[in-house]
């Protein structure tokens, strides 16, 4: 018997106008696993994660979290059930201090402002932003803003961490720091990682799911995905060229 299924999607579908973004996607994610979601631009990765997080309502299909149907739940209620979400386009509270950004992520669940501040400093120390705690988040470099957003996710201590292209626009050393942060996650944390950087994917993912034109064309361990002819045709072949 495999680990407990944390997240499951059944026949999840979404069209925008006449364009099918996601077409009947079935996927299961056990607790503790890192699943990378890859596929060419426009293959429906972001739409899929947005439907899981509750930012987009699916046309058909269901989302189950810990076996409970959450399809009708609004996003904030799903987050409260143990999801954390980082945006593809960095989204922080630019005019608030770095410290307050993380504190806001904590304050929903942690009682007492003293405890919130303590945990904030621990989290900022962990990602290397403690020295910049009192700067406005908008003054941070692009890379640091991405790290801050990941810190806001870490602070929530999620059961499911959804990251939409977290290394996009990061420099090589910043990518290495990101990988180290992900390695440090508690073993029970499940991660859904939308990612273009194949080195990061190969390094972190336990399994890889490949989307193409809104459909799931392959799911499996990295070795098998790398060898899959359909995947090579759709994605790896062109990306590596």
């Amino acid at each position, binding site marked *: 018997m495999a680990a407990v299924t944390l997240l499951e999607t059944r026949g999840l579908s979404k069209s925008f106008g006449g364009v099918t973004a996601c077409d009947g996607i079935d996927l299961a994610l056990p607790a503790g696993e890192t699943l990378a979601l890859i596929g060419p631009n426009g293959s429906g990765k972001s739409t899929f994660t947005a439907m899981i*997080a509750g*930012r987009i309502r699916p046309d058909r299909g269901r989302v189950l979290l810990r076996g409970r149907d959450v399809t009708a739940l*609004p*996003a*904030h*209620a799903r*987050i*409260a059930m143990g999801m954390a*979400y980082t*945006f593809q386009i960095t*989204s*922080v*509270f*630019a*005019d*608030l201090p770095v410290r*307050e950004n993380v*504190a*806001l*992520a904590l*304050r*929903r669940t942690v009682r007492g402002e003293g405890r919130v501040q303590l945990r904030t400093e621990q989290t900022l120390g962990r990602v290397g932003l403690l020295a910049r705690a009192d700067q406005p988040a908008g003054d941070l470099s692009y890379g640091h803003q991405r790290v801050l957003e990941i810190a*806001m996710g870490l602070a*929530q201590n999620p059961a499911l961490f959804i990251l939409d292209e977290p290394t996009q626009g990061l420099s090589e050393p910043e990518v290495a720091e990101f990988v180290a942060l992900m390695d440090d996650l508690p073993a029970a944390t499940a991660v859904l990682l939308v990612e273009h950087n194949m080195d990061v994917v190969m390094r972190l993912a336990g399994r890889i799911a490949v989307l193409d034109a809104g459909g799931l064309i392959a799911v499996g361990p990295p070795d098998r995905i790398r060898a899959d002819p359909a995947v090579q045709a759709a994605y790896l072949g062109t990306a590596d060229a």
Partner: protein
Amino acid sequence: MIDARRSLLLHGGIVACLALLAATLPAYHAGNLTRILVLAVYAMGYNLLFGYTGLLSLGHALFFAAGMYGFGLSAALGGLSAGAALLAGVAAAALVAGLTGALALRTRDVAFMIVTLMFAQAGYLTILYLGTWTRGDEGFVLPAAARRLAGFDLRGDGARLVAALTLFSACFLATAALTGSRLGRTLIAIRENEERARMLGYDTARLKLVAVVLSGTLSGLAGAAYAMLFGYVGASFATVQYSILPLLWVLLGGAGTTVGPLVGVALMFYLIDWSSRVTDAYMLVAGAALIGLTLFAPQGVAGLIRRKAAPWLP
């Protein structure tokens, strides 16, 4: 934590200064101060929604008038004592704010401004329509019984000023505490980036409704107090002018600062007071001042101080 102590010192200090002013000012200015303090409560209510939550309403006269008429009608027609009528006014404003918020918050940005404006116009027209009881534009003067609170006759200048100062201080310290609280910080987060706040698990739709109700209730308390202290209830307080005024006060004083509303009301009051003695075109002077402000200090007086000198200003 140092910020919290500074904040206590600042707000306590301002209340103490106002008490000193109240005790020493000549009669004319003491009368002005009474009016400024009550209107500042209205501005603080508005600031809670506009300055802290980032929702621009053009219909707050509806809440001010709900408080005023809730007080006036229940005292003049229902025969309630001033204390009970005050509660009725606040309850009326909370109810109206809850209903308005529940509907208006289905929209955002410009649509929210227009919908709140329309609700306020509907409120104004309702007051005129129910002229049998409200006496419409003409309004009505409150009976003496409605102007006695806890044994004080609020028709006297001294008692009126003490009442206004007490009310202002309570609301001022309460909003200062609120802005430092969990709720206050979450409202600021919604103002700064609503989608990010939602994706941190905050029920932003519910919190915005809470903000509308708190803001409307405080505005209604100001409306009820205005009626109680100055003894008159009239439809002019429900016109669009009274929806625009709190926006101007808060912009002038500094949106999203605790001291901004008081500063804005006082500046605008004396600007008009002074310019109307110099020229009939006093609104032109006020307009020019506002344009200058938008150009040179778009964050208002307190916002400018916060940016230049005191970044901890709450």
